[in-house]
């Protein structure tokens, strides 16, 4: 799989950057943060909703990025973890009347356990074989959700309708705006935690495994533990994203979490730049907005137009948004001189 090799070999455009540069500089981060805080005050509720979805998908792509860009393992099964998170939140909110905010950590924990458990058998597989095993998980998930055994809880094929929360403490903002800021706060928290994770001892272990498994184990890295841990962390974050998604969309159904979602998330990661965390959100924007653009160009051929656009992106900037960011950085650097 070339994407990971690329991370290892580093193409010319990326070479100048030190390996630890998986994040944005402080100045850029602040600018982005301020923009994210201000924008909702000026746009329609519908756009706020789209931005919320962007953050949510961004989180899911970020989770995949930790797994693939961090520890070098592939997954086409993220939709399964996303579904588990979404259903956990939906069921807790609708049947036990639990506060939506409290359901998220539970969704995260359940998905962490689920991912960690799935990581065990996955240890024996690598590369495309691992991708296939996770693919199986993603294909099976919608059917598992439809099983008569769980139907009492999952609502079977009819799904579950989730109540959207109002802004607390009588804050004068719409449901959409509140949910946006709520999601933004969680996103920032998880983003900072992820950056710190990758910079920590565990993160270095992930990357050592990614770069060379044998060398990593020779240095004393517990390969099995860190590989499964990466799966667990990734699944946990995806679960939180899934829970948020359920609250934002107000509905969960097996059809929402098909293999197409997993492929979209994978696509988002590649477009955003494998291993570059801020790119996750660029990738999320790509998977949300580009299909709309494609549909605007031609309704009957929207799939084909999307394909052409995707091809152009991959062909022109094979390292995704990261490459664009680096080129921009270099240009700014030259201008300053």
């Amino acid at each position, binding site marked *: 799989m070339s994407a990971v090799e690329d991370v290892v070999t580093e193409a010319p455009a990326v070479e100048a950057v030190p390996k630890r540069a998986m994040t944005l500089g402080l100045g850029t981060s602040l600018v982005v943060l301020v923009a994210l805080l201000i924008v909702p005050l000026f746009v329609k509720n*519908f756009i706020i909703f789209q931005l919320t*979805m962007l953050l949510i998908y961004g989180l899911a792509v970020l989770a995949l990025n930790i797994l693939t860009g961090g520890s070098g393992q592939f997954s086409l099964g993220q939709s399964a973890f996303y579904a588990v998170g979404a259903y956990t939140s939906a069921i807790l909110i609708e049947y036990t009347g639990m506060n939506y905010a409290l359901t998220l950590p539970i969704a995260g924990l359940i998905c962490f356990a689920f991912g960690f458990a799935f990581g065990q058998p996955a240890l024996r597989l690598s590369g495309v074989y691992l991708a296939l095993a996770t693919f199986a998980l993603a294909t099976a998930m919608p059917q598992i959700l439809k099983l008569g055994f769980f139907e009492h809880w999952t609502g079977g094929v009819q*799904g579950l*309708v989730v109540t959207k929360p109002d802004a607390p403490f009588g804050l004068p903002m719409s449901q959409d705006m509140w949910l946006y800021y709520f999601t933004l706060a969680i996103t920032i928290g998880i983003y900072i935690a992820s950056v710190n994770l990758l910079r920590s001892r565990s993160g270095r272990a992930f990357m050592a495994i990614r770069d060379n498994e044998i060398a990593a184990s020779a240095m004393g890295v517990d390969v099995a533990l860190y590989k499964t841990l990466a799966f667990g962390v990734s699944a946990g974050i995806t679960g939180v994203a899934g829970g948020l998604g359920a609250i934002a969309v107000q509905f969960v159904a097996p059809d*929402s979490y098909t293999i197409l979602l997993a492929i979209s998330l994978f696509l988002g990661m590649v477009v955003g730049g494998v291993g570059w965390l801020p790119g996750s959100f660029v990738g999320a924007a790509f998977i949300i907005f580009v299909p709309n653009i494609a549909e605007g160009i031609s*309704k009957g051929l929207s799939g084909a137009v999307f394909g052409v656009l995707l091809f152009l992106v991959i062909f022109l900037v094979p390292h995704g948004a990261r490459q664009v960011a680096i080129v921009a950085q270099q240009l700014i650097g030259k201008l300053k001189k």
Partner: protein
Amino acid sequence: MSTMKKLAVVSTAFGLLAATSSGVLAQKKYDPGASDTEIKIGNIMPYSGPASAYGVIGKTEEAYFKKINAEGGINGRKINFISYDDAYSPPKTVEQARKLVESDEVLLIFNPLGTPPNTAIQKYLNTKKVPQLFVATGATKWNDPKTFPWTMGWQPNYQSETQIYAKYILKEKPNAKVAILYQNDDYGKDYLKGFKDGLGAKAASMIVMEESYEVSEPTIDSHIVKLKSTGADVFINITTPKFAAQAIKKNAEIGWKPLHFLNNVSASIGSVIKPAGMENAQDIISSQYLKDPTDAQWKDDAGMKAWNEFLDKYYPEANRADASVMFGYTVAQGLVHVLKACGDNLTRENVMKQAASIKDLELGGLLPGIKVNTSATDFAPISSVQLIRFKGETWERFGEILSSDAGG
């Protein structure tokens, strides 16, 4: 033109405007999406993704509104039909519905397709008080005006259809052993539930096997063999067209000849019976509410002729054997009827009011005797069907028009 003259012209114009508009404005009422010149209609269809075959419905509707506009529109207003793709994915449906309501500001959302996508937007549209009119799904729950006064179904629902079969079996073959094959999704399970409800207490003793298949399976041959082995003498076939054709063919191959009930979803001669072989499909029982364009008995029918003329002119590339084309045509006519009835009062409330007061409306695509009826408590516009039996090369209608309103 001198300044004086300009002033004179302008003031006359204003005077005229004031004179004419004061009388007219009193009756004209608009909600977002409606104006003197246009009516904005939103629609969501799976143009891509697993259910993309149904995208034809959206295209037919678009073509039909083009025809209406070419003929002068509705009470002088042109229909602006905005149709988006949701790929049959509920989160995407929510996004598109919000775009239609909040960004495009449509008057109503018309005929969005699929049970999960419609469930996903039902609450939102009802809170926003935007009509979710004539949804393209046969689930039973859309007829629930008390809880969801802004949502209305269209076609006969799945449950009432199998209830009709169940009643027929109880009457004609009370000691039948019934084998059921159904698709493992909302549509299949809804049909199944209707059938069991129809049999009532006898369901447990009469049904010898319920077998399900996944829509992703390439063939259902093994399921048929399994069902035959039960020795059942009635076969309830709840499958979509591709699988229905396979089932009919396989039945003939292995020599299983039960009393065969085929759901209306697959009662198309062009896409099911012909591929399966006419000789294999003799005596199959199904039900219909639309005319089957591939059925020779409608060759000289006036409604069918009008349909063909419309397609020739506005949608020549349509596949006339596809039942979705007839579906889209008929439901679009239903909407035009409602909008015409609204007159100059194009508010969302009036749209729902007019939609809920259709009386004995006959449309060219419906079987003779089947009429559209709604009321403040009945949000199931088409609720009757007729049983049909396949004889020779065509469906023979038999018995009377049956109705069975299952509530949501």
